[in-house]
């Protein structure tokens, strides 16, 4: 099974290395991204300070926790924003008509996209997220959590990367059917911004909006790891939150496999 689908560690590492070279080429955009992250971390902190000044007890966590949450939301954007997903690559290949080269490679297509994406995310994590988090500890009052929270956060972050990959991958598969996902991508960005809890934590959503955000998978991407980090989901709540992420990973994995099979048959028919 392993040999047949070409899934092994060596192939994965080769993709990772390749992606590292790709990313290190664009130095200017790297530095601009860094400046952008700093400005955003600075400003979201001030928004929460202004809100807390008027009404300190409104949302049930301390100002320090809330600022850590918000700063984390900005820093993680460098790996969790949909623009870093595989769907733009897939769409571009579909547009150029070279997607069958990727499909016909002796590697499982989903694993290929996963390895490629993880390579670029690992590089982005090391060179964008990690430095900005370290800087945020000194400059923007990001607090380090207790050890169990921190370990939970790392597990949960790994899960959110995987959930985010599956959702982006499904969008990419859609582009093989619709040929253009620019507008779908746009809508997805907007929905994600709202229901992922990146900017505004989901537990302060009123009434029915709170229920909707609980049902959707988007909270796995920002809200769960960030809530674990600031200690809002501790103990049993933390395990429950991780369970929700595992559930979505399995569900999205199965549905993306099924969708992939379906879409590929279609592409084969179209291609003759």
């Amino acid at each position, binding site marked *: 099974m392993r040999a047949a689908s070409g899934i092994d560690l060596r192939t994965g590492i080769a993709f990772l290395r390749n992606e590292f070279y790709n990313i290190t080429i664009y130095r200017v955009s790297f530095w601009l991204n860094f400046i952008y992250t700093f400005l955003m971390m600075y*400003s979201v902190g*001030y928004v929460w*300070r202004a*809100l807390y*000044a008027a009404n300190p007890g409104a949302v049930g966590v301390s100002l320090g926790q809330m600022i850590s949450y918000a700063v984390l939301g900005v820093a993680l954007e460098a790996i969790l924003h949909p623009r870093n997903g595989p769907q733009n690559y897939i769409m571009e290949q579909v547009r150029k008509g070279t997607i069958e080269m990727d499909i016909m490679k002796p590697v499982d297509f989903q694993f290929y996209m996963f390895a490629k994406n993880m390579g670029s995310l690992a590089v982005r994590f090391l060179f964008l997220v990690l430095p900005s988090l370290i800087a945020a500890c000194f400059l923007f009052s990001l607090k380090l959590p207790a050890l169990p929270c921190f370990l939970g956060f790392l597990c949960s972050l790994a899960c959110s990367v995987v959930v985010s990959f599956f959702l982006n991958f499904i969008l990419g598969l859609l582009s093989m059917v619709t040929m253009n996902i620019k*507008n779908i991508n746009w809508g997805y960005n*907007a929905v994600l911004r709202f229901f992922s809890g990146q900017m505004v934590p989901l537990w302060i959503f*009123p009434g029915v909006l709170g229920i909707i955000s609980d049902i959707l998978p988007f909270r796995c991407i920002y809200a769960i790891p960030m809530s674990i980090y600031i200690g809002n989901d501790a103990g049993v709540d933390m395990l429950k939150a991780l369970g929700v992420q595992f559930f979505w990973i399995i569900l999205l994995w199965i549905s993306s496999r099924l969708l992939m099979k379906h879409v590929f048959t279609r592409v084969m028919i179209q291609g003759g």
Partner: protein
Amino acid sequence: MGYIRLYGQFLRVAILGKVQYKADFFVGIVSVLILNAVNLSLIGILVYNFNTLGNWNIWDLMFLYSFWMLSRGIYGVFFWHLSDLEEMIVNGTFDAYLVRPVSPFLQFIGKDISYTGVGDFLVGFLGFILAGTQIKLQWNAGQWIYFVICVLSGALIQVAINWVGASLCFWTTRSGAAVSIAERFTVLMQQYPVNIFGRYFQIFVTCFLPVAFINYYPSVVLLHKAEGGLQIWQYFSPLVALLMLVIAAFIWTKGVGRYAGTGN
């Protein structure tokens, strides 16, 4: 006068080109509406929980946002394609403008018209009416005139910033990354009253990247939000807009001259 007639002709051609794609038009408007709904709801949820932000309540913030959307809509319809310059320089299509006997800027600006701006303007208009009735605005004629002038000035400030950003391509070929980051950043800034971000920040968005004059200072003036009395320079939006345009036009002229010089 001839220039204006020519620009009108250019726009007519651009509009005729656009109406070919009706589905694209509706999808474009709908996605703008969704994005605005998301932005407004996030602010709404925050203020629903905390009651106020600084001394601004939900309707004041909606006024601020609508103010920005009105000016952004006007800017967007006519000038959204300023960012196309990078692509046109890279693949050489801009050169065609230089050999024709009409100002390259006029040709470039007249080449396209964007409907996402229509969506923004619509949101701004509805938001303004809603916020205005809730705040119970009672303006005299002078205040209405100042309001209209400030919306136009806000549009012109955005034109000038993006015009400078685009003109940088003449030197660096690529400026898209910097412009898009400035854009993403201002999108956050314009939603909140600038004074909550602290002193240094306020100086930055007043003097260096004067985005505070797009909607914040006019709103401060019109909603009487000034802390410790209104300063005279807080009225200066129209002057800032004019100054910015002059700077932008200067940089553009320099850039085109340089490009024409080295391009051949």
